[in-house]
């Protein structure tokens, strides 16, 4: 849940990058860290395993400046994607305001995407939130691998698999090259701030 300081006109919200293991959540944050220096408000913190996989989370604090008279701060998190870190994923999701679901475009990862989205739905439900109501954006990552002849799912199929019911904004991306990363984040921020504006009525 976002923290709104009425007196100081400050709002702090939390956006979580969710998705199956190795889909590129950390790569998204790394690109944001490198490319949005003006907005980044500190170091990116990663707690990884020795094999360089996310163990707890990655964390990146950002500041968006003043929006409608309010100083907006954003905390970006990733969850550990591996199935076994279920309890940590749930913990990171606590108090989330917006979600970016990073799906892996590789054909061989089709089922993992679906399982992870289901896992997101269940974890949100445990916090009394609905996946249909929370600000959510889909990112279809690793599109660049098509150039190397690797079988990818067509975007239409990914839409059918993951976004048929949700109908949320979705973007193709290559986090490793940076394409689609910014627009995904901006759309998620737009939806999240709109939802918080409605909740806190701060622009009125």
């Amino acid at each position, binding site marked *: 849940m976002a923290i709104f300081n009425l007196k100081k006109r400050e709002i702090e919200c939390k956006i979580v990058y969710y998705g199956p293991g190795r889909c590129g959540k950390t790569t998204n944050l790394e690109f944001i860290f490198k490319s949005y220096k003006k907005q980044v408000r500190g170091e990116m913190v990663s707690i990884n395993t020795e*094999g360089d*996989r996310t163990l707890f989370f990655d964390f990146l604090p950002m500041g968006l400046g003043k929006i409608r008279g309010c100083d907006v701060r954003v905390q970006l998190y990733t969850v550990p994607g591996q199935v*076994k870190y279920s309890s*940590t994923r749930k913990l990171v999701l*606590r108090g989330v305001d917006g979600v970016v679901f990073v799906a892996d475009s*590789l054909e061989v990862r089709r089922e993992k995407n679906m399982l992870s989205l289901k896992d997101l739905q269940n974890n949100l439900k445990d916090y009394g939130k609905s996946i249909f109501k929370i600000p959510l954006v889909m990112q279809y990552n690793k599109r660049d691998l098509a150039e*190397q002849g690797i079988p990818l799912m067509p975007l239409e199929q990914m839409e059918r698999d993951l976004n048929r019911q949700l109908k949320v904004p979705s973007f193709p991306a290559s986090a490793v090259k940076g394409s689609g990363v910014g627009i995904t984040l901006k759309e998620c921020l737009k939806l999240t701030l709109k939802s918080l504006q409605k909740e806190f009525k701060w622009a009125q």
Partner: protein
Amino acid sequence: MSDFKQQLKALLSEAEIYKGQGLVDEAKAKYQSAATLIRSKENIKNRDSLLSAIETKINQLQKERSAANQAVQSPRLSSKAQNLIKNLFLAADDEGKDDAALEAGIVLAKLGQFDSAITEFNKLIQKDNLRVAAAKNILQCHLAKSSEQEAIDQYQRWMSDDGFPPKQLETIRQYLEEILQQKGVESRLPAPKLEPQDRPAADLELELEKDDEEEFIDITSIAITFESGPHKGKTVEFEVNFQSGNMLSLIISKDEADLLEGLDDGMTLKEIQFFSPIAIFNGSAVVVSKTQIKSGPKQGDYCLDIRITST
């Protein structure tokens, strides 16, 4: 032949890319398909050397996988990192702040950072709704450090400092006594003086249990009957070190690491006996993770997390 070459090249390049992405299972499957393709052609000159090269790649993947499994979960956490974990979760929201603090403490304990975890749980002792859960976790931290006496001393300190309502203290006494009995430690813990309204009334007992703050019954130990692997048919009892709702964490000594061979992530354990201070019952659970503790007094031991699925 050119079709064959193209197919083989495509499979091997796919396997390499999956390997580079850290997708071990997917890479292995492609290498295996490549091997099957080579085996299907008998008139290839360098057939044996190709197969051997692929086998080496598969073996290397398996080695990397087991190294990653061993290395995984318990990094050395600096005090800065520990503070970050606590602060980040505690800052998330005010409503669930106390629950988050409890969970952050459990995370630290599971990583073998028992002293830091005790510090966190001690802060929660002041909160009426979390006092019992925090106290149980403090005792578990002492027990995990192999310090039964410290757990007993801690109970006695609580007993004498008047900070606990007698009913809560009695719950903790029963909990600790049960664990000590299972460990074969002879100890008679002094019981608090209960007010008449706190004394158990047989006809109200079930209702009182329901009203308690605990959603899940406390499990002190479990007995797993292995259904496969090297210990098939064997029943082994494990002590429960930490409990968070239906998640149980068991710390298993490195000397008993062979027991973990039959317990893989995601495996359903259909035959489990759960021992609690008030009852023994049967049920099932799923193995969530097994991790090696990398620092602290339990360095080298393993933490096995299982989730109760039915009782």
